[in-house]
Every structure is written in C-alpha cells, then in structure tokens.
C-alpha cells in the first residue's frame, strides 16, 4: 500500500471493511470524515468512545468506525445508547443515524432522552427520505417532494428537527449541511465535549433516492445548492428554521445551554443517610 492509499483518519476507520456500501455522490462519506476529524481533535480517550446506530444508510457508519460500535435495530439506537451511558458514565456515547430512524420509528425515544437530558450525543443525517429502502417519504420529507411512496408529491407536513430537539429539552442544537465541513467538524467536537443531550442535524445529499426524483441533480449539484441557499443564523428561534423544497436552508447553532443531566439528578442515598445522622 502506498502512502497515497492511506486515509489520514485511518486509525479511526475499519479500513478492512472498505469499500463502503454508499453510492457515489452521497453526503455520508463527507459527514463521516467530519465526525472522524472531530473525534480525533476532541482529545477524548478513544477507548472510552462508543458509537451506536439504528438501521439505514447512515446507520452503517458505526460499522466503519474503529471504536466500540453497536449497529442495533431500526429506531432503537437511543435507548441502547442510554443503557450504555448510564451503566458506565465514563463512556462518551455517540448516536449516528438517519432522519427516519431517529424521528419516525424512533421519535418517541428521541424526545424522551432529550427530556431526561441523558448525556449522549445525537448526530442525525437528514437526507429527507428513507435512503436505504429506496427512497420513501419520511418525517422530514418536504411538502410536494416526490418519493416512491409519494408519487404525486408529499402531502404530509414535515418535522423541523431542530425545533423538535429544542422543544424536547436538548442542551445543544445545531444544523449544518454536508458542505459546511469545518463548521460541522467544530460543532461535533463541541458536542462531544459538552455534558448533556446534544443534537446535530446534517442536511445531506442522497442523490440516488431523493435527489434524482426531485430534479436536484447529482451530489455535486446539491452541494452547489447548499452553497447558494444556506444562511447562517446563530441563536435564532429554531421554529424559524423550518425547511422546504427548493427554499433557503437556515443553519447555525440555535441552542447551547447547561442543565443537570439524568445522572446528576440521581438520588444519592449515601449522602442523604450521612446528613440524617448529623
């Protein structure tokens, strides 16, 4: 193998699992790289970092990451991650999964883990559809978008994920696109080091399943679209950051607050008993 064949993040990749399953032009490769750089720069002990996913194209990321990895069932990454974190608080636990996985079948777990402020980090790749199963509409598909199960245009209202996260109690809420490599990397790093339930949404091209049917061109065309139409609005109310087909994409950091986590609030009977004695 020549020097050129070695990826700079090789130590964090399971290189023997390459080639990966993703389509050319898919945003997942870029998102994955940003995550690996952030992990590398975070200074965290890699042996104490764990990655969990549900099912989907995005859900394959843990299997390519060279840290403890758990590819669970569709929608269930968050409760699995909750168990890992509460059982061993020393772990840094990352959930990396798709919009359908985290917000359709797994939506209930998302809002409750955020409410409890379980100290885990959620990275959601929002490609506006169910990529893996061939491009059906999902909970983030914009109105009017064509998918294999909305052949006349989607007539369901989509979630605005950053608003859902903020409303559920996440302490850190950010949105970037796959184009915002540097900012995304920094935000992931920040989230990994932050205590509490953090949420990062990545708007990401799925040229094969979503882009093609909605005339968004190939992966590169989608990146050009992000360049032209994304606007950075740090600190705005997440409700004003909703998305639509062919509209502007509001990105930035919307929430960054501190509050006690689930573990911080655990009853400490031993000290209560000490106090009672006095």
């Amino acid at each position, binding site marked *: 193998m020549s020097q050129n064949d070695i990826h700079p993040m090789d130590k964090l990749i*399971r290189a023997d*699992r390459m080639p990966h399953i993703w389509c050319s032009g898919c945003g997942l490769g870029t998102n994955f790289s940003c995550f690996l750089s952030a992990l590398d720069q975070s200074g965290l002990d890699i*042996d*104490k970092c*764990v990655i*969990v996913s549900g*099912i989907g194209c995005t859900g394959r990321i*843990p*299997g390519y990451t*060279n*840290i*403890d*990895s*758990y*590819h*669970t*069932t569709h*929608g*269930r990454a*968050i*409760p*699995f*991650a*909750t*168990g*890992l*974190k*509460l*059982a*061993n608080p*020393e*772990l840094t636990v990352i959930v990396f999964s798709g919009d359908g996985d985290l917000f359709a079948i797994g939506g*209930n*777990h998302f809002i*409750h883990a955020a409410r409890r402020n379980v100290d885990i980090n959620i990275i959601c790749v929002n490609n506006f559809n169910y990529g893996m199963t061939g491009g059906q509409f999902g909970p983030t598909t914009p109105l009017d978008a064509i998918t294999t199960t909305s052949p006349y245009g989607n007539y369901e209202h989509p979630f605005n994920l950053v608003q859902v996260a903020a409303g559920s109690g996440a302490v850190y809420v950010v949105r970037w696109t796959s184009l915002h490599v540097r900012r995304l990397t920094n935000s992931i790093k920040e989230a990994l080091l932050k205590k509490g339930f953090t949420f990062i949404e990545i708007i990401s091209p799925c040229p094969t399943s979503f882009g093609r049917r909605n005339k968004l061109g190939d992966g590169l065309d989608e990146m050009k679209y992000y360049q032209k139409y994304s606007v950075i609005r740090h600190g705005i109310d997440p409700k004003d950051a909703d998305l639509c087909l062919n509209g502007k994409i509001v990105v930035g950091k919307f929430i960054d607050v501190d509050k006690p986590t*689930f573990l911080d609030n*655990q*009853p*400490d*009977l*031993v000290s*209560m*008993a000490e106090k*009672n004695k006095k």
Partner: protein
Amino acid sequence: MKIKPAVLTGVHFMNGDYACAEGALAAGCRFFAGYPITPATEIAEAMSRRMPHVGGIFIQMEDELASMNSILGASCAGVKSMTATSGPGFSLMMENFGLGIMMEIPCVLVNIQRGGPSTGLPTMVGQQDMMQARWGSHGDYEVIALTPSSPQEMFDYTIKAFNLSEKYRLPVLIMSDEIVGHMTERVVIPNEEDIFIINRKKPKNKPGKYLMFQPEEDLIPCMANAGEGYKVITTGLTHDERGYPDMSAEAQEILITRLCDKIRKNKDDIIEYTVFGQDDAEIIIAAYGSPARSALSAVSLARKEGIKVGLFRMITVWPFPEEKVLELATRARVIIVPEINKGQIVHEVERCSKGRCQVISLPKLARIHTPYEILNVIKEVSNS
C-alpha cells in the same frame, strides 16, 4: 435513612415480584429499566426503591421497546441488567429480544403473565405467552425460559436466570405468572457468600487479537464490554466471528447453527425439573408455574387414595425437557397437562411422547385449577 445491602440475608415474607427484584440484586443486577404494567409493576417499584441503596440505576423508560434496548446497552457496558413486563409489553420487547439473541448479550427479561390477547385481562393470571417466549421474535433461535412456582423460586431462579444469561451469552426469560408474582410467602435469602454467581467469560486475547463472536469449545464466545479497549463491532445483521456483516448463505448457516447449538448441546446443564411420586406412576401430571402447586396437592390427595400418580414439574420450559418427557411417556399410561391457557406446552408434551402414552390437555383461563379439578381428572383416568 438506613442503607440496605444488596443481599438481604434473612427470612422474609414477600410477594413473588419483590422476591424477583431481590434475586436480581443478589445476582449482581445494577441496571433496571421498565415501564409500568400489571402484574409486573411491583418489580419496577421495588427496583426504584432498592437501586439507589446499591449504587445501581433504575430508569422508567418511555415504553417496552426502550426498556429492552436499554438493558441490552447496559449489559454491553458490563453491568448486569433486567427488565420486567407482562403481555402487551412482552410483545413490544420481542424484536429486540431477538437483537439480544443475535448480538449475544446477557440480560434477564421477566414476564409476569396475565390473560391475553391484547390488553386482555390485566389483573388475572395467564400462561398464554409460553409459545411467544419460544417463537415470538422473528427468525430461528433457541431460548432459555424458566417458570418459578413460588416467591422463593422467584428469588432463586432470578439468580439462576442471570447465571445462565452470563454463561450462555443471551437474554434469559423468566416466564412467571400473576399468581406467583402476587402471592406472598416465606422467602429465605441466604448469606451473600452462599450465593453462586456466574459472570461472563472475558477475552483471553489482547485487543487486536480478540474476536467478539469467535466461539470457544463450548460454542460460547468471550465477551468484551464497551470501554475496555477492544473496539468491538456488533450488528443485528448476520455476521462473522469478527462481528462484520456478512450477507452470505454460509455466514447465516454458521451463525444461526451455532446460536442454536450453544443451547441445544448444553441442554443437560440448563434444564431443571422436579419429580414427585413418579417411580410407580401410571399417571403423570406435567405442570409448570402456579398450576404446578395445585397439581402437587392433587397428586398427594390421589396417592393417599392409592392411585399411582406422579408430578413432573418443569422449571425450565425452554429448552424443552424432551428426553425426560419421552422417558415418562414410555413408563406411564397417561400424561395430564394443566395450563392456564388453551393448551400450549401440551403440544410439546405430545410431540415428545411420540405416541407412547395418552396426553390429556387441561386448559383453563384466568384462574388456577383447583386441586380437586385435577384430582377429578386423575380419578376419571385411573378408573378408565
């Protein structure tokens, strides 16, 4: 407040649900996740009271899907974990019970059975989930399911369930029922040092050399926990010994065969039952859970009247004690199977009897058979 130890050594008067919680703590369980449901709620309540005493975690999840998944996650972080539920919750747990089978994650799932289907009969007894325990998740696999008959056994067999789960690397089922869960009886909790505990086999090789799903001679792989530096890779997809997804027929053949064989080939170690008055028995009552209690009374009454009858009480229902049933069927004239369902385990008894004796189903819904109901059947059979 007085901090209580994990093992409450002494003589207690407690119900089966509480005894189950105490058994779990004594076995080393330090993570409990659950969602309230009659008649299993008391287990969650007990755990919410007791876990802070022992430095463990109690979490009330948003549903049973979450409960099941979080106990899998906790176990992967190296902490023994348990959930407890009943009918509807058991159905919700089935998909991820399968994930535990596939990823070979030790943990314990308790079902205090009530009447079904659907919301059914929340406050009354059932044994209608016995086949769901065996086949409720999709795919082919083997399970271990225990059926305690008393609060004392709830304590003892919860410990055994943890030991089996740690030894064989899978979620183990306790298929109890409302009567056993809610009945209050004497429970003796031994000294901590007298409790036999099995912990999962740890990797013998260094990180880099160790494989998460490479079996040893006993067909069971050693288990590394998250955070120990092994960089484990696990998936619910069919996988090879490294844990890498492998979408080939060969990989499916190798993995699923091993998952079945690790239980089938060790069934003598797993299966437990008791027999009473059986040597001369022409009639056998085969029972498990709460009906085994009425069956025992019925057998004692019948024997006093000189009827040659015995009780075969299953404590392990899955894997099914096939060989023992065949042996009984070869010697006896009739096997009677009282169950609180329309007849489930009776089919297994029939299958394993291979036509060597008559098998009679004694179905009942929502209530336990009285000893006299069973006795009357014994008498009818003995006169025929």
